[in-house]
């Protein structure tokens, strides 16, 4: 777990004081909205459809129980009793009053959190594998590198006004659980044959208006050169990225237009120069950070065997529990996707319960996933029944992880001022239609992602089934995409055909899944069958 040092705390406290003064001046009328707007956005405070919205950064999705409890307290005290976990491992509050913003930021700072750089054309909160430090398949823990990136990117003066926002994701496993290649920079921590840690660097991925999969820019980078190399990547982007057209301003456009080879050449040239400047933190700093992420004291006597005689519990274990690197332990994913529910929303009571479970059963650790769920990363298998019972009582034991009911959905037109169509009601209808968990399990892994506009906060390009909401002459319309994926086999979905109404889309998805069931070969996921057969037969079935 990261720990604020005196510099971190002083910087965040100073920012809170500064913003408190800015809010006071805005309320007193000495700052106009034109002056104030960039200041509030620098502190994660947006003005959305119905109210101010505060986006709080959760560093690489990692929380302790005190932080989680504070998130619940803020939901109760300053919002309307709930929060929304986002696809960038953050949390958003939808009903914030401007006058309360300084007090909220003060509360956040008291637990080592803030909302800085959750907006604007800067380096946003780094995201990471939500199973980091726990996964059985992990090569190396990416969190120390993510923490180094947090320290490097926070208030980095050179990169505070980039051509466009900038997102970094980092993983340390073969399995990509962070959609790493769909970020401006993706980093995979790897090991060479000598056992040394290095980094594989991907640059120029992204979703949005022009989705692209990031190419490899560096196959192997010595881990102790990460900051210098990323500095070079950002400098080339900052120098040549377009500022005349926001739709062509992301680094993916630069890498695409220069070509990966030329971009790489320029980065290497800049990198060679930066290495002469001694910007890289000393190895002792990375070692100090790594010590903060040492394994918690796992129970060496923890047992593997558990009583699975309760079928509902057994179902949940099978679907929502993953192998842990420590014997007798497990990783629990708490689904925030009840049938008919709002993806990613959690009430203050639920947030507090999850905090208590982390404190009591998971070495005080939590993770937020980009799929809008919450993870207890380090639990003893023997504690699974007690955890499940408490989750079940709170409506948090839905056994649908990675199934069709585990839908990613952006806030859409119900909350977001950028949206063209509502996402959440559609997600609710789909998850209600497929509420039968056995039916979901029969369909197998099926990632369904919904965005309410082309900005793709709902990752629709990366869904096995993706949905994009559009505005057709003032009427909501939904385009259906098939064939996207965010993992090791990253691919971009393609639009099947003409769009649908909300109800029409639910029917279309059902027809696609029925066609898959009829055509699948043993062991094939929906995505596999789609890739084998291609788009045409699916289209024929969907529009029949």
């Amino acid at each position, binding site marked *: 777990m990261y720990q604020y040092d005196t510099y971190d705390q002083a910087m965040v406290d100073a920012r809170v004081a500064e913003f408190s003064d800015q809010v006071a001046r805005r*309320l007193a009328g000495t700052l106009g909205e034109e002056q104030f707007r960039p200041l509030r956005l620098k502190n994660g405070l947006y003005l959305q459809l*119905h109210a101010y919205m505060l986006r709080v950064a959760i560093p690489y999705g990692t929380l302790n129980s005190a932080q989680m409890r504070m998130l619940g307290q803020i939901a109760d005290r300053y919002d309307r009793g709930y929060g929304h976990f986002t696809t960038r491992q953050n949390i958003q509050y939808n009903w914030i009053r401007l006058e309360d913003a300084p007090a909220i930021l003060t509360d956040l700072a008291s637990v080592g959190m803030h909302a800085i750089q959750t907006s604007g054309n800067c380096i946003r909160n780094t995201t990471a594998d939500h199973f980091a430090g726990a996964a059985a398949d992990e090569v190396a823990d990416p969190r120390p590198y993510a923490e180094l990136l947090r320290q490097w990117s926070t208030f980095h003066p050179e990169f505070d006004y980039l051509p466009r926002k900038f997102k970094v994701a980092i993983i340390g496993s073969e399995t990509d659980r962070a959609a790493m290649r769909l970020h401006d920079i993706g980093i995979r921590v790897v090991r060479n044959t000598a056992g040394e840690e290095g980094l594989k660097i991907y640059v120029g991925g992204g979703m949005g208006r022009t989705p692209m999969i990031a190419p490899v820019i560096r196959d192997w980078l010595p881990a102790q050169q990460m900051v210098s190399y990323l500095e070079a990547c950002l400098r080339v982007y900052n120098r040549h990225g377009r500022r005349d057209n926001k739709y062509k301003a992301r680094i993916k456009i630069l890498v695409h237009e220069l070509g990966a080879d030329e971009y790489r050449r320029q980065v290497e040239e800049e990198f060679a120069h930066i290495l002469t400047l001694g910007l890289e933190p000393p190895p002792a700093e990375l070692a100090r950070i790594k010590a903060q992420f040492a394994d918690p004291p796992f129970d060496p006597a923890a047992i593997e065997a558990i009583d699975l005689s309760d079928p509902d519990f057994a179902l949940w274990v099978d679907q929502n529990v993953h192998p842990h690197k420590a014997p007798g332990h497990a990783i629990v994913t708490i689904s925030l996707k009840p049938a008919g529910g709002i993806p990613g929303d959690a009430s203050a009571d639920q947030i507090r319960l999850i905090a208590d479970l982390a404190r009591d059963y998971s070495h005080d650790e939590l993770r937020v996933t980009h799929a809008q769920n919450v993870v207890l990363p380090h639990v003893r298998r023997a504690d699974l029944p007690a955890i499940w019972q408490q989750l079940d009582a709170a409506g948090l034991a839905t056994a649908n992880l990675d199934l069709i009911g585990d839908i990613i959905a952006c806030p859409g*037109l119900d909350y977001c001022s950028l949206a063209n169509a509502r996402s959440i009601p559609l997600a609710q209808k789909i998850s209600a239609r497929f509420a039968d968990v056995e039916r979901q399990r029969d369909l197998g892994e099926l990632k369904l992602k919904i965005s309410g506009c082309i900005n793709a906060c709902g990752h629709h390009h990366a869904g096995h089934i993706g949905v994009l909401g559009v505005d057709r002459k003032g009427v*909501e319309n939904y385009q259906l995409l098939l064939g996207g994926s965010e993992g090791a086999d990253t691919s971009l979905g393609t639009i099947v055909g003409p769009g649908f109404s909300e109800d029409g889309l639910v029917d279309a998805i059902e027809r696609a899944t029925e066609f898959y069931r009829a055509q699948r070969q043993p062991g094939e996921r929906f995505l596999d069958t789609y890739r084998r057969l291609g788009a045409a037969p699916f289209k024929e079935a969907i529009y029949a």
Partner: protein
Amino acid sequence: MTAETITILTGNALLGGEVIWWTGQGWSRHIDEAAAVPDDGAAVIAAESAAGRVVGGYAIAATRDGAGIRPQHIKERVRALGPTVRLDLSLRPHDPAAAAWIA
């Protein structure tokens, strides 16, 4: 009452960010209290913005009939009502027809 197309002014309140509508004398949270303006409302918005009584004001087209005022664009209808997925937090929490008003 015959349906007519009117221009009304909207924005958000400074303090709480609530959606508000220009009534001719001030701002209301209820769209049915909105007043039709004869032009694009730029002068009103400029004065009200300068006074800190509205943030991000702008004019929209709406239809007015015997049932009230209904924005022509769905985004403004969502703004006027509240989130359709949390009608308990909307301005019409007990109205079963509220969601249908959006569509």
